[in-house]
């Protein structure tokens, strides 16, 4: 969690210094969700999420260097500077992105689960979405398909109370429990608070077992909170919710501090160890920022790479690429 937090603080500094463009959707305040759930995954389990994707990327084991360089638009980024903040990918770590279109990832997670079942692999796909994304039609279609085809997909609704400037009360007709909609599709569902990492892990584990052993989907709703605006450029960040509300969460519900305190109370962690973890995370983030800064931008010719497989890996003779691919 420290690594995610320090990574994002450093990225925010770099954003404000003009080192990157576009959007930067910070995950700060929500770290426990990605960390608690992804910490349970095994070698056959997969992850796909939306555009607020830095936390998941680091939790699956991506390096800060490749993530930071991607934010800077550098050739050394995980997507060679082509995707940007919203589109981080690491298929080698079974991390299928970072997706910019709200709920667009929900059928992708379904498809990954389909492939697992098809290939007879006992795994699951954690598919993250926000409280705003639950109102997209494609999510509901995905739920029906997940249940109908009995697929090992786990939808994790990260309910941070807002979709941009719209509070949950103004976006969903049934406000009490977003996960409960799963009942209409005959899918098991549950709900918990992201502050309680033990509880999140226990409930995620139940879903993982259900996926692996019964090939059944689950919808798990996890309450959480984002500290910053929707993206860094969200000028209204402190208008649609009060500064007091934000401060209240930061002071009393910070998942990182609460978890640290709990581990110390339980004698699992010492203050010194916690400080050392934080220190290392800061140093790693600073180094990543320098790495990204010093890395080269892609070349102009790179614009035309990574579009068609056969052009990037041209075969000879009969199988050589044919036809015109680009039309400039």
């Amino acid at each position, binding site marked *: 969690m420290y690594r995610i937090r320090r990574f994002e603080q450093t990225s925010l500094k770099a954003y404000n210094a003009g080192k990157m*463009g576009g959007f930067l959707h910070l995950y700060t305040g929500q770290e426990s969700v990605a960390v608690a759930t992804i910490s349970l995954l095994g070698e056959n389990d997969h992850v796909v999420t939306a555009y607020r994707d830095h936390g998941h990327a680091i939790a699956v084991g991506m390096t800060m260097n490749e993530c930071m360089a991607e934010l800077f*638009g550098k050739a050394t980024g995980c997507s060679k*500077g082509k995707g*940007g903040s919203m*589109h981080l990918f690491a298929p080698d770590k079974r991390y299928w992105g970072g997706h910019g279109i709200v709920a667009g990832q929900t059928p992708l997670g379904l498809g990954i689960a389909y492939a697992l079942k098809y290939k007879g692999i006992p795994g699951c796909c954690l598919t993250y979405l926000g409280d705003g994304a639950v109102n997209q039609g494609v999510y509901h279609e995905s739920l029906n398909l997940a249940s109908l085809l009995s697929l090992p997909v786990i939808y994790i609704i990260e309910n941070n109370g807002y979709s941009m400037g*719209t509070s949950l009360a103004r976006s969903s007709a049934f406000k009490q429990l977003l996960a409960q909609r799963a009942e209409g599709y005959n899918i098991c569902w549950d709900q918990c608070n992201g502050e309680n990492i033990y509880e999140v892990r226990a409930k995620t584990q139940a879903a993982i077992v259900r996926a692996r052993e019964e090939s059944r989907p689950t919808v798990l709703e996890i309450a959480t909170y984002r500290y910053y605006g929707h993206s860094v450029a969200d000028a*209204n960040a402190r208008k649609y919710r009060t500064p007091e509300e934000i401060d209240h969460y930061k002071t009393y519900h910070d998942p990182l501090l609460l978890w640290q305190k709990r581990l110390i109370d339980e004698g699992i962690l010492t203050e010194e160890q916690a400080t050392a973890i934080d220190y290392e995370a800061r140093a790693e983030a600073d180094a990543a920022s320098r790495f990204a800064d010093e890395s080269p931008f892609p070349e102009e010719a790179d614009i035309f790479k990574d579009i068609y497989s056969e052009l990037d890996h041209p075969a000879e003779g009969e199988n050589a690429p044919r036809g015109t691919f680009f039309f400039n």
Partner: protein
Amino acid sequence: MALISYRKALNDALAEEILRDENVVVMGEEVAEYNGAYKVTEGLWGRFGSKRIVDLPISEGGFVGMAVGASMLGVRPVVELMFWSFAYVAFDQIINNAGCVRYMSGGQINCPIVIRGPANGGTNVGATHSHTPENLFAAMPGLKVVAPATAYDAKGLLKTAIRDNDPVMFMENTLLYGEKWEVPEDEYLIPMGVADVKRVGSDITLVAHGRAVITCLEAAQILEAENGIHAEVVDLRSIRPLDEETILASVRKTHRAVLVEENKPFCGVDAQLAAMIQEKAFDELDAPIGRISALDAPAIYSPPLEKIQLPTARRVVQKVLATC
């Protein structure tokens, strides 16, 4: 005439039409309480209230379809898409419902809906958020597509679009929202299907729409200063209906044309224009028609590279020099 921003021009157009016709309703994500993701609807909710300015959740397929349905009963929804890139979630509603209902009902049903929002690259938001789908929608008979380049055109065209009885896809540009132009205080309308000669010239015709018009004007200035070439800049303003006559008249005068768009080249708007020009003014042409568009790849994120990917004045100048 007042100097107002493209954003304010759109805002004024919406306010004027809301006041003029009780059936006009503005709806979309964050349009009311948040004042619009790009502040185009700023202040409207405060002024007109929740009946006329309606916040909706992230359900583009649902609410675009809802607007189409409401329009069949005479409501005039102006639906904001935060980005035109999100229209793909609502593609079926736009193409099959909005685009076909008049025809399939034998002309019995109107569909007076406007869908508007930014449709542009150049802001480093990556491939999923940088689409320029004017060619896709313009390919559908039944739909209209406009892409204003200035505040003046944006205001006049939006008012016309709202009064139109068919679905109008209104494509704006986030990079233009803050740009200011002279706009008359008195009411005016700009008809769709009428192009505008933004700069008169005699040596070559540059045809563009949306922000590419601004790029062409810049290129025309360079050509004049550095090469003594007088370029005429034709701004389509509306892509469907298309003002063929203004384009052809300019080509008959200059005998050369370079077509510029921020869209991708293949099956782009300018592919249609090039076919039309060669068919209808072949004997007038002294050189092949040139085209400049976005480099033919998904939008790259990397900021310095995205600058290269979109048409630049320099690239237009080079193409003109190769054509003249």
